[in-house]
């Protein structure tokens, strides 16, 4: 690809799934309007949802999912050794995600419930950065394809890669939505990173914080407002714990 004297190399990319639903990777093949242009940016080395061919000379590794078995740790470490840029891709990779709910129970109890009578090796769920160094995070359940495109374009052109720093509320207001707190619900919009175009709250579903905390969240004030509206603190705690995305904040008096 040539542009005004600059030559852009295609991004040598690979996509890997760990403990997850593979839904974030599936987003890569979504948004048909720009799909051909998007794939044009990429030299796909390994991505089982798109191609059965597999090569190991990738520069960028997209990691979907969290880590919940020892063999996953070893596989991830091998990817880390190869990848120049390792991307935590989706909420499970970034925060542990829904899988982290597992960590509330003992492993023995879990195996007995889910795989009764079977010998299953498992361990508490970890996010990717608990195991290897992460260069870039793209949160979301699932990731927003538009954002993924923007990140890939920026990587291809050598531009700065950033995530929005504002919370979901800001984007929700641009949709002229009625605030879900006004409708008596607890919504994590005020503390969750925007960039999703407030898709859930526009559908009148409270935000569960899949994109993690926005920059500089004010958790004490947020807990205060839930109390002031006499909403359930248990409900709040459950929502905050849903994606395990507010680890550093969730112990606040709520």
């Amino acid at each position, binding site marked *: 690809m040539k542009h005004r004297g600059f030559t852009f190399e295609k991004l040598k990319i690979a996509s890997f799934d760990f403990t997850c639903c593979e839904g974030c990777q599936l987003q890569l093949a979504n948004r048909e309007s720009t799909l051909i242009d998007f794939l*044009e940016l990429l030299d796909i080395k390994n991505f089982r949802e798109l191609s059965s061919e597999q090569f190991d000379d990738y520069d960028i590794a997209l990691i979907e999912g969290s880590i919940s078995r020892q063999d996953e740790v070893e596989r991830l470490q091998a990817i880390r050794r190869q990848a120049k840029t390792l991307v935590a891709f989706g909420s499970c990779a970034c925060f542990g995600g829904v899988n982290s709910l597992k960590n509330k129970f003992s492993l023995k109890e879990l195996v007995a419930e889910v795989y009764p009578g079977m010998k299953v090796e498992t361990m508490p769920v970890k996010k990717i950065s608990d195991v290897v160094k992460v260069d870039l995070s793209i949160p979301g359940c699932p990731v927003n394809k538009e954002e993924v495109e923007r990140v890939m374009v920026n990587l291809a*052109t050598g531009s700065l890669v950033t995530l929005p720093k504002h919370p979901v509320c800001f984007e929700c207001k*641009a949709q002229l939505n009625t605030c879900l707190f006004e409708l008596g619900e607890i919504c994590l919009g005020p503390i969750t990173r925007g960039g999703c175009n407030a898709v859930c709250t526009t559908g009148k579903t409270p935000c569960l914080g899949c994109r993690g905390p926005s920059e500089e969240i004010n958790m004490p004030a947020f807990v205060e407002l839930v109390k002031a509206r006499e909403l359930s603190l248990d409900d709040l705690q459950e929502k905050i714990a849903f994606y395990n995305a507010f680890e550093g904040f969730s112990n606040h008096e709520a």
Partner: protein
Amino acid sequence: MIYKVIAKSEFKRFTDALLRDNTSFGPRQVDTDSRGKAVYQFLPVTSSDDVAFDYTATASSAKHFFLPFREELSRFVFQDQEWDQQISYEGNPIVLIGLRACDISALNILDDVLLKGHFPSPYYLAKRKNTFVIGMDHLPLPDCFCKSMNHHTISTGFNLFCSDIGENYYLSINSSKAFNFLKECDTRDPIDDDNCRLVERRKIISDSFRSEVDVTALPSILDIEFDSPVWEKWGNKCLNCGTCAMVCPTCYCYSVEESFDTNLKGATRQKKLYSCNLVDFAEVAGGHNFRPKNGDRLKYRYYHQHRGFAENANQQICVGCNRCGRACLAGINPKDVINDLRMEKESCLTNISSSPDRI
């Protein structure tokens, strides 16, 4: 200004024709909140039946019809070694019905800022010129304080303004377009009784305000109180969510982003409305942030709203609609913040010397 009186049934006929033949927006109920109150927004309308004429106030202002939340300023197309910049200012004609006096005041303030400075905005101008504005008066909500800001009445900035005088509307016609449209309708010149009813209506509105904010000398108080602990106190409540600026009818600050198309053959420059309460509003290259603290950011919003900037001749730009106060989940509102700020200084009044005795 030309004044006419129109029967409400005839006004309905007029609006039906106008809204049917033009892309139009007016207040509609979108929800009922958990306390049983109706929530309104300016949304598309195609007949007078769509319009909630008895609405109170919309949750969000009408600002975005003139300053979209996101707007493409220009497109760039790359060809070989060259590039083209494409700019389009066109705004499609629209009708906005049901704006309150404070909403129209807000447009006049935006006119001052965006059209009367050194660099008038052609994007704003195109939309403003192409919008037919019909105002409607209303009884204030308990927390409206537009009277304190002197924006509860309006004499300019609209095409047509309707005052509710019972069976009829008292029309203030402020454009030849509105006058010509109304030629097709049955209207009459106001008689004494109509004028009395208008004066009475205005008095009822004026007497109905329950909230007052003392804004006398506020710009200088804000200057004096630059380091006041009041900012930190309210800043600690702030969620940094930017909601206040989004629903505000006059907050016009924005950010600009340039991005490549996915095919790398073009690029776009987009403007999006932003808020000084957002954490990266004053962040610059290298990550330095001029206003890293909540209180600092909150203060700057109040400075811009109530002290003004040079662009608008240091006039306050708040119109007193209290949309920000209603929308703020943390309970931050201009009335309480400004009163707090005044009290802060008044608490030291005991220290000054007493007035000399009268001779």
